[in-house]
């Protein structure tokens, strides 16, 4: 509960604790509060409407309205042809979706959890990611794989793994990890319009979190380019680079550190692959200190990649201290609440790491 409250607090401005559940109006008005879930649904709705070739498939996406209610209302609006309930056969339906993409449709595949995508990983990588290259440019594959990724409260080891590093490893894939409602909407629309395979890593913890959506972001053509990070908070003393739900933690930690006069620059990666190293380097050249913060495992992770690239690039000579990573603990996710809380980066862990890096 405290965890959820802290996430809520870290929305762009202070947000009410009452979560609204109404279907978001499509008429652009002034700034509005929109949950990440509704933002995703809006993106799906708008893209389904815009392009006949877009269709959704996955478990429970149609009649059940989505295991996490992300696709609520879509089946009623678009019917059986465009919103398809699949049997519980991940490798089969992923292969079918990739085949449909090869033949010119634009499927959006939902995984009830990216943990289940492991069954389909052969199709995501060998049938989708590599095909345009192997065919010498003859066969593109326009497809989006989306669903909740990473930690969720109480779901334990087999349902809480973060796949950012796994998919981020593969040339031929684009990998996106939104944080806010605006991220979710703009990036999902871009992903669906992209003619290449995109892995879209949502997070269950963020679904119910409301964010302010500007008038511009409510337009049907609002797109956020894949491959560009966003500076969520400007600062001069240390750069915190993060993605997905952990950005909330970084914002909270930044607020705490500000009281001690330490100003953090928080970068929301938005895209894992291709990664916006330029944004990170520019920030590091200013702050001279770098900490990557993620929920995934430390070995061969997103943070490891960022640090390696900083070593190899212009940013290295600006560092006043070694760049470090804050990550999930290198263990399968435990169930008990106290153990779970100590497996993921908390505000105190980020604060501690910042102070260590700054030697204060």
């Amino acid at each position, binding site marked *: 509960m405290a965890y959820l409250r802290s996430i809520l607090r870290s929305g762009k401005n202070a947000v009410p604790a009452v979560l609204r559940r109404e279907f978001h109006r499509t008429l652009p008005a002034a700034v509005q509060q929109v949950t990440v879930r509704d933002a995703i649904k809006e993106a799906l709705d708008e893209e389904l409407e815009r392009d006949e070739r877009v269709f959704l498939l996955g478990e429970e996406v149609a009649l059940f309205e989505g295991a996490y209610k992300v696709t609520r209302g879509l089946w009623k609006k678009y019917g059986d042809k465009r919103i398809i309930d699949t049997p519980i056969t991940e490798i*089969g*339906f992923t*292969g*079918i979706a990739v085949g449909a993409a090869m033949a010119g449709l634009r499927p959006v595949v939902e995984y009830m959890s990216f943990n289940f995508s492991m069954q389909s990983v052969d199709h995501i990588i060998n049938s989708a990611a590599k095909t345009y290259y*192997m*065919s*010498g440019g003859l066969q593109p594959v326009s497809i989006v794989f989306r669903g909740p990724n990473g930690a969720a409260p109480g779901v334990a080891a087999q349902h809480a793994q973060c796949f950012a590093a796994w998919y981020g490893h593969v040339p031929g894939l684009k990998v996106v990890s939104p944080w806010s409602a605006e991220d979710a909407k703009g990036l999902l629309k871009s992903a669906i319009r*992209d003619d290449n395979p995109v892995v879209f890593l949502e997070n269950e913890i963020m679904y119910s979190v409301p964010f302010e959506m500007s008038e511009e972001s409510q337009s049907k053509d609002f797109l956020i380019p894949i491959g560009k990070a966003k500076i969520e908070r400007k600062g001069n003393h240390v750069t915190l680079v993060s993605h997905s739900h952990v950005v909330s933690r970084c914002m909270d930690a930044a607020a705490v550190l500000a009281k001690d006069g330490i100003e953090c620059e928080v970068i929301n990666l938005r895209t894992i692959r291709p990664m916006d190293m330029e944004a990170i380097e520019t920030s590091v050249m200013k702050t001279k200190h770098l900490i990557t913060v993620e929920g995934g495992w430390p070995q061969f992770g997103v943070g490891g990649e960022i640090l390696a690239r900083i070593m*190899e690039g212009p940013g290295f000579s600006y560092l006043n201290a070694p760049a470090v990573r804050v990550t999930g603990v290198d263990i399968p996710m435990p169930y008990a609440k106290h153990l779970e809380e100590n497996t993921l980066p908390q505000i105190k862990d980020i604060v501690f790491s910042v102070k260590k890096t700054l030697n204060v």
Partner: protein
Amino acid sequence: MQKMLTIISNVLRGSASRNGARVVVSARTYADFTPQATFDIKKCDLHKLEEGPPLQAVLTREEGLQYYRTMQTMRRMELKADQLYKQKIIRGFCHLYDGQEACAVGIEAGINLSDHLITAYRAHGYTLTRGGTVREIMAELTGRRGGIAKGKGGSMHMYTKHFYGGNGIVGAQVPLGAGVALACKYLGKNELCVCLYGDGAANQGQIFETYNMASLWKLPCIFICENNKYGMGTSVERAAASTDYYKRGDFIPGLRLDGMDVLCVREATKFAAEHCRSGKGPILMELQTYRYHGHSMSDPGVSYRTREEIQEVRSKSDPISMLKDRMLSNNMASVEELKEIDVEVRKEIEDAAQFATTDPEPPLDDLCNHIFYNDHPMEVRGINPWSKLKSVS
């Protein structure tokens, strides 16, 4: 008379252009060749079907010559690939199709070029029937810029219009094919997808997942199992609890037929296509066929089967000989005419091999291209941090 014959057959040959392209040529001929004949073909074994394909097939002279030419081209192309592989000009994996020609040619004869097809890695024959040229195929095998995939794919990754490869992961092509069929149904163009796999792949779980969804959603998909009796080095009896592959679709109707007879394959494919196009959903065909080569070029193919077995199939059931005998014994072609086709085919293969060995390899500039489609140019990290390579769509 002989001169007249030669002129006629030259005209006919000229218009029967390359590969598996279906050419409709008038059946009028001034020679005393039989313009068409009806042949008895073996009955298919049926599963969940009241009736099967017809027991007779009509073959016109033009069709016969075209099937003969295509099968012979396929045969010679594969044998040339064998030669080039032994000379180390072709590298890596090379899975040859000789012996199975009647399957590829018969299937294409039963569908349209506007239909779709996907298969596994033993794909050179299908690349040809689906519209690839021998030149492009051979140059892809030798990894040259004139290859059908610009030299970037190799033996197992060849693509052309409405042909989705060439797939290296056993069984993966089956759900992909059902996905293509889903697109056919979605787009409402009355097209279907032929989805091929071998006896080895037939035990893959994802195939059963695909049978389920294809059936549930009535996808216009013809599943075809090319049963050549061996999955790599494992005979069917050692791999499958049930070797009745045409029944393994359970709720999907199935046919089992002689895959060495091009007419049998054609009639069954027409029957299956009709089933799909009428909205009845998927159907399964098992073609009993045989490969003369081992699994791939690194397999001599005799450790798990006898030379006698291979020889027996060659002498008694060779698909090209079978067609040739039928045409000759029904006066549908002359020995000289067929020999002339052989000579032309040999020349085509030689020219293609010449091209494939002399065409340059793709330029290094092309190394990082074709990662993303319709995207702005990007930088790709090279082997060391100072190596920044360029990638365009």
